[in-house]
């Protein structure tokens, strides 16, 4: 059995490139730990793409090999209601590459992808989508905090919790930040906004085991 995972991170995203790299590295580290922790022979095939390896023209070619079965897909970069961007290019839109993610559970840290784009992806057989209906705010100088919060979803999902419960854990991580008196008031309020903008679309009852491929 194996878990296919695709991590797409815009390492050159304006103002947030470094954060995206942190998110990518943390995700990959968690996937490796997941494989080590499983004693049942489950292997993880994870494919990581950044600005120099993926664009809107080759995205389908990169993702298609795994989309016949369930897979985990993480996006980190700039987004809008109708697109996810890489290096300023709209690589997934409501009319372009929207069909590539069949069978995926998609987790994003990007602005507004939880709106129209998520709806279109679900219509195109994405099993579940977790993201933000509003901005995914990230205060300067505390990327480690933002990264830890965002990773709590991946950690919970890989621990065996279903998507709904993993999102609850993500909300609790945001609430920890809201209550953290070492953070500044504006930072705490932006994390609150992130929490309130979280959306789950599709089947929130799925667990990581539902994505394993024989």
């Amino acid at each position, binding site marked *: 059995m194996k878990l296919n995972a695709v991590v797409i991170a815009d390492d050159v995203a304006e103002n947030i490139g470094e954060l995206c790299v942190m998110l990518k590295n943390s995700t990959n580290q968690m996937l490796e730990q997941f494989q080590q922790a499983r004693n049942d022979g489950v292997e993880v095939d994870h494919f990581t793409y950044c600005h120099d390896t993926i664009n809107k023209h080759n995205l389908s070619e990169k993702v298609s090999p795994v989309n016949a079965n369930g897979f985990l897909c993480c996006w980190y970069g700039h987004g809008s209601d109708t697109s996810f961007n890489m290096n300023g290019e709209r690589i997934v839109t409501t009319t372009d590459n929207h069909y590539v993610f069949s069978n995926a559970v998609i987790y994003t840290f990007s602005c507004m992808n939880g709106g129209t784009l998520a709806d279109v992806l679900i219509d195109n057989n994405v099993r579940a989508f977790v993201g933000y209906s509003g901005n995914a705010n990230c205060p*300067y100088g505390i990327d480690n905090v933002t990264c830890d919060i965002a990773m709590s979803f991946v950690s919970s999902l890989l621990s065996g919790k279903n998507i709904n419960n993993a999102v609850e854990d993500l909300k609790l991580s945001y609430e920890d930040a809201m209550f953290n008196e070492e953070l500044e008031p504006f930072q705490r309020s932006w994390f609150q906004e992130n929490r309130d903008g979280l959306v789950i679309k599709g089947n929130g009852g799925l667990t990581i085991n539902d994505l394993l491929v024989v």
Partner: protein
Amino acid sequence: MDEKMNITIVYIDDDEKMKNDAFLDDIETEVDGIEYFEKPSEGLTYIKDHIDQNIVVILDWKFNSSSLQGEDILKDIAEISTLVPVIVFTGARIDAVEASKMFKGHAFSCVAKDATTEELVEAIKNAYDRIQNDIRSVMEKWILKQGDEKRSKPYMRSGDKVYTLNDILEAIRKQDEFGKETTRRILSLATELFTNNMREK
């Protein structure tokens, strides 16, 4: 009120005899100080230069020696910051049209020039209370406490925009869309932290 109010009164009035009116002496005992300006432009410059202090403006409405009238000055003050309370102080008869201009211009209150000193002091105390209690003023004070260097550095990424604390301060003062949204967020956070009803800490 036992202690002096921690505010400077900026009094803008082109009626020179008001400068020496006894009511100013009475008010002076209640506040940190009074700055009198016959020329509106000088009063506006003072407000701009001392925006990090608590200011309450007392503003005449009809000016004979200036092309600027109270309505214009109100707009100019709101351009600097909507957080500075302005008490319109006038001997002119205020009809509904004039009153509407005052409210639209963010006037805090209106006191007639034939009011008693106590009535004017009461209006100043109300303005002071607003400065103390308005969440926007609290946010402004917090940002100003952060120091010049921190305020001018990138502080926040939201969407494709980057904001410094100075950008946030300006948005709060002008209450543009981002300023209103930021204010709403802080209130929302304060409400949740205060009620603390979502879970046990």
